[in-house]
């Protein structure tokens, strides 16, 4: 299986936990969001407890966990929001 790197933008408390606004993670080509989350749990244990409550955005819109990822997608983890 070919693996492709996905850059994942982090915000709010997730960026603090990872000590970075961005992490890179390898996933199988065509992987879905849930596979990416599984890989992130393994590679970045500091993020793991917060991933269940995070939403995922691809190309600036919220997506469901079954969304397939493509090279060049802008992927972001959105922890619980508190704007206003």
């Amino acid at each position: 299986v070919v693996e492709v790197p996905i850059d994942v933008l982090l915000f709010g408390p997730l960026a603090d936990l990872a000590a970075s606004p961005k992490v890179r993670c390898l996933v199988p080509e065509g992987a879905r969001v849930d596979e990416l989350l599984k890989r992130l749990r393994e590679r970045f244990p500091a993020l793991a407890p917060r991933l269940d409550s995070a939403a995922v955005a691809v190309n600036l819109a919220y997506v469901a966990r079954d969304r397939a990822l493509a090279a060049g997608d802008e992927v972001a983890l959105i922890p619980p929001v508190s704007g206003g």
Partner: protein
Amino acid sequence: MLILVTDAPLDEKAARAHVARPGNGAVLVFFGCVRDRHEGREVRSVEYHAYGAMAELELARIASSVAAAHGVADVAVLHRTGTLPVGEASLVVAVGAPHREAAFRCAQEIIDVLKERVPIWKKEIGPDGAVWQEGVTPPLPPPRG
């Protein structure tokens, strides 16, 4: 529609001017301001962090769908980022409508949905240090399957 996420002070006059028209008998301008307490904690300032490009898109999606549902045509939403002291405006929502009922309902609903969906985060700074506010997980779109 005027939508802006910015680290500069919010221009409420521009927001008001954007929604004031001869047909709008109701012009409502709401300010959301940094409060000095949150869940029993003293707050001195709040750092607003945003996923700027997505926050503007989400605000535009919310403002247009809520405005359409209330038959309102004129809306402006401005959200500030950066470190704001107590009392400073972090949010301006302006709505112009022919009558007040629609203007009040539309502004209220825009703010309700904004708090559930727009990718912006508050970090409170108080006497004991900094803490991220708990927040709300945005509703996920249903799976496609």
